[in-house]
């Protein structure tokens, strides 16, 4: 341990390492550009267009040129990974009736498509009415079943 401490330290910034120091520094400078992070943020997110300053900078800076290329490649790749969905052949025939019912709700008023209060109310009441009707049907089926059971039991007792 003592030997290591006593050993003369060879610093990178020492005069003797002048050439190595500059080659490391150049390498470090070439790795990053102060504008690169902003450029990535611009290309990946919010900005619709890259500002003129950055457009000019891309022309000069090789690091940012590489970044721009990588970003456009990534965008293309992602676009390619999103599946293309085609409309099924029977889509129009199956939805025509239902969609025309929905479209009929619109009422043209002052050039805009709107729906009246009466139609909205009718739309809400329709499922309720259907439910009531289905309950009535269920009720009548139950009543019929009970009567049939009674008749069957009566016939059974008479036969004995």
């Amino acid at each position: 341990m003592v030997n290591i401490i006593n050993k003369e330290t060879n610093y990178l910034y020492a005069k003797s390492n002048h050439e190595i120091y500059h080659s490391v520094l150049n390498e470090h400078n070439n790795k990053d550009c102060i504008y690169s992070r902003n450029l990535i943020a611009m290309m990946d997110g919010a900005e619709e267009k890259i500002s003129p300053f950055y457009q000019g900078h891309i022309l000069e800076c090789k690091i940012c040129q590489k970044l721009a290329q990588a970003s456009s490649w990534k965008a293309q790749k992602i676009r390619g990974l999103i599946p293309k969905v085609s409309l099924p052949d029977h889509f129009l025939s199956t939805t025509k009736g239902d969609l025309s019912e929905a479209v009929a709700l619109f009422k043209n008023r002052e050039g805009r498509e709107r729906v009246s209060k009466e139609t909205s109310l009718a739309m809400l009441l329709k499922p309720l009415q259907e439910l009531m009707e289905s309950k009535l049907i269920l009720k009548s089926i139950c009543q019929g079943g009970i009567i049939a059971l009674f008749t069957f039991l009566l016939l059974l007792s008479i036969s004995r």
Partner: protein
Amino acid sequence: MMGQKYYSFAYILLPDELMATQLIIDSATKLCLEIEADKEGSADLESLYIKAIFDLALLRQEHFVVTESASFYRLSLEQRAVVYLRDQREWSIEEIASTLGLEWDRLYCSLNLGRSKLMDMSIGSDLKASSKLW
């Protein structure tokens, strides 16, 4: 074609022909009822329809199991919606945020997470394919 646009979005959210078709019909009906409440009527019909489809899909997703094998469908519903609208339909961030009713930070989070997951899965499958070749 308008139908194609909406159907694609519905299918991206719930990848099943029947479910997507039903989503289109129900969203149209929902929209018809909601437009009455929107007194100003300033929002355009397309974004209102997209919003209606998105909201209904969010409600229905828990009863739905994704069987599509494409890596895109492994993203969450919100991520799929955001990535699709931004990268496929090229909507602006503002448009997506106002249409889907998402906060900006949440929108960015979904967009970036969705993109990076998609890229990771794609790179992973590419590596698998190349290792098979070797």
